[in-house]
């Protein structure tokens, strides 16, 4: 379904959606992040990239998996704590961040479908906003199979056409939302479609960064496990978690028991984000750590994204949002690292 929505009508549409929990990019200080909105008028879709991707709405940094408590007979009672499945809408999802969710979908599916992830995922409608201007100077979505107007993973894609949005419904969930406020939407004219095509073509041209010959990378990496390159490239790495915590595709987690009382035993089992960049990520209880240094941790990040994941799911675990480049406190640049990998192979 393709429609036109004027910018004036946009808040009216949002008003029709009040039964949903609505997230949209909100500005706090100099930073944009996805937050729940109180007023429909407060949605401003003219924003650069959010610091955090909307990943944490579907896969929160902290998730309570179960609660436990010992009863009178000294038996342990365990209660599963599934998240609420309140219908949720996220406005302003960038195509790269939406695509990232299709990748984490793969991870949380398989033989065991993670109920915590899927409960949130299934109750959330993703309304995307095509990037007419790259939201970050380090955008490189075109190199990893995405585009500034990719529809992958989205329920609706909106394209800004000046005083109106071109609204394209891509799923049943999306159509439902449009049908809730049918009179606000108009049929697009041929000129509108042309304008969309033109904007999209121009948007692609504005993306300046790219990974050349990315197709070669997975096979080159295969022979690079023991390469001295990792030592060289990780010299300035600080072992912080910025690159992975801000990544829309990184999904590693840790599970801990948060014990509120030891007698009687009472507490919660909690899942929190974890990252391969922390020294304790693969620390064994024997004291041995198979990834003892920065080099092996940088290698793990690159291999997971451009080798292991490709072999297993035929996709790069990277959607080119550029957050890890922009926010790295010492300027480590994943594109540069991959350039060196490619040079190494040739």
């Amino acid at each position, binding site marked *: 379904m393709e429609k036109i929505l004027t910018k004036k009508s946009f808040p009216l549409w949002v008003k029709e959606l009040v039964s949903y929990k609505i997230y949209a990019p909100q500005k706090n200080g100099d930073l944009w992040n996805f937050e729940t909105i109180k007023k429909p008028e407060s949605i401003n879709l003219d924003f650069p990239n959010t610091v955090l991707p909307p990943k944490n709405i579907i896969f929160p*940094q902290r998730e309570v998996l179960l609660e436990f408590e010992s009863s009178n007979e000294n038996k342990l009672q365990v209660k599963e704590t599934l998240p609420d499945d309140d219908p949720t809408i996220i406005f302003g999802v960038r195509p790269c961040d939406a695509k990232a969710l299709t990748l984490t979908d793969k991870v949380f599916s398989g033989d065991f479908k993670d109920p915590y992830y899927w409960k949130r995922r299934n109750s959330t409608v993703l309304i995307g906003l095509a990037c007419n201007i790259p939201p970050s100077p380090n955008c490189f979505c075109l190199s990893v199979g995405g585009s500034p107007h990719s529809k992958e993973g989205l329920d609706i894609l909106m394209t800004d056409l000046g005083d109106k949005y071109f609204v394209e419904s891509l799923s049943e969930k999306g159509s439902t939302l449009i049908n809730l406020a049918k009179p606000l939407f108009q049929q697009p004219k041929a000129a509108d479609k042309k304008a969309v095509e033109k904007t999209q073509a121009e948007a692609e041209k504005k993306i300046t960064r790219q990974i050349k010959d990315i197709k070669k990378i997975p096979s080159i990496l295969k022979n690079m496990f023991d390469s001295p390159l990792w030592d060289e490239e990780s010299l300035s790495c600080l072992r912080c978690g910025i690159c992975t915590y801000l990544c829309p595709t990184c999904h590693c987690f840790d599970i*801990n028991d948060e014990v509120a009382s030891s007698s009687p035993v009472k507490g919660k089992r*909690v899942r929190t984000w974890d990252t391969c960049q922390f*020294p304790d990520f693969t620390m064994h209880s024997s*004291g041995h750590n198979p990834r003892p240094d920065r080099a092996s941790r940088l290698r793990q990040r690159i291999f997971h994204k451009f080798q292991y994941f490709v072999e297993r799911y035929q996709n790069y675990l990277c959607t080119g949002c550029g957050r890890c480049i922009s926010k790295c406190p010492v*300027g480590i640049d994943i*594109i540069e690292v991959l350039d060196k990998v490619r040079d190494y192979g040739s």
Partner: protein
Amino acid sequence: MVNLDNLKKEANRILKEEKVKYIIGYKKSSNGLFTVPAFIKNPEEVEKLTWDPTCVYNLTRFLVDEKRKKAKEKEPDERPVGLIVKGCDSRALVVLLQEKFINRDDVYILGVSCEETGVLDEKKLAKTLKGKKVKNIEFGKNDNFVVTTKDGKTEIPAKEILAERCLECNANFPVISDILFGEKVKRKSDNPFESLEKFESLSKEERWTFWKEQLDKCIRCYACRSVCPMCYCDECVADTINFAVIAETTAEEKAQKIKWVEKSPVTSENFVYHLVRAIHLAGRCIDCGECERACPLDIPLRLLNKKLEKEAKELFGYEAGFDADVPSLVSSFKDEDPEDFIR
């Protein structure tokens, strides 16, 4: 003004004469405006070295990695590491020397003076130029920065785009060095606690609301800890495991490891982490401002550390990073230390 050619000449000399293992300095990043840390091993690479207002990093931090690496080597190279330091970085070095974390022989110090300026704040620059892309930026005359954009060169008064920490810096030249580039000029009339004093005048509840909002943003990426030259503990209270674990450690010992801070990024846990970090930096933080710069969520961490810097100065007359031979703030005392708060 720092003469880059002289700096390169000296770097070339010490590498050629094999006086140092390698040099930690700054080089232009291949993408964009900012510099990145450079690890120069051969005289041929010296050309890469640069010095401009984007040299924000505190390279002293990398001595921590160097020490750890060296400890693992069977036959370590005992030569020093060449290190380029600004004023703030040199004070961090003094604290590491004071704490005997490193020896003076471990490092050959190439000091660069910020003179009347300092390093810039990326965000301030972006705001001033309203998104215009910068091609180059260098130190100019009269405390100006010369910024080159596609429209040509413009001069911007350094004060407008200097990092906040530089505006409040009270020693903008290296306090220790083997060779110094630039002049030891002290900038005048700066109040090192200006932003802090403004904040202190708020009411208790306003301060609480502020810190709660700020620390609630924390995602515990630990960039503040990782970028800090003073955060060199082998084991941090915020980590969930004990790095002192060896093959012989018993299960019981492991089970009894106290979990001071949960991994969950919630108010109570974030506060314990940040309060512990702040107090552990008391009398050690030299306000290089790297924690605040690194924070992806713009938590004003300097405001936390500055408070204890000010109290150390006012209560105990102690300033960190000027003298490696005095005992540290919390390993010393005076009979006349204030005790009016004690019952």
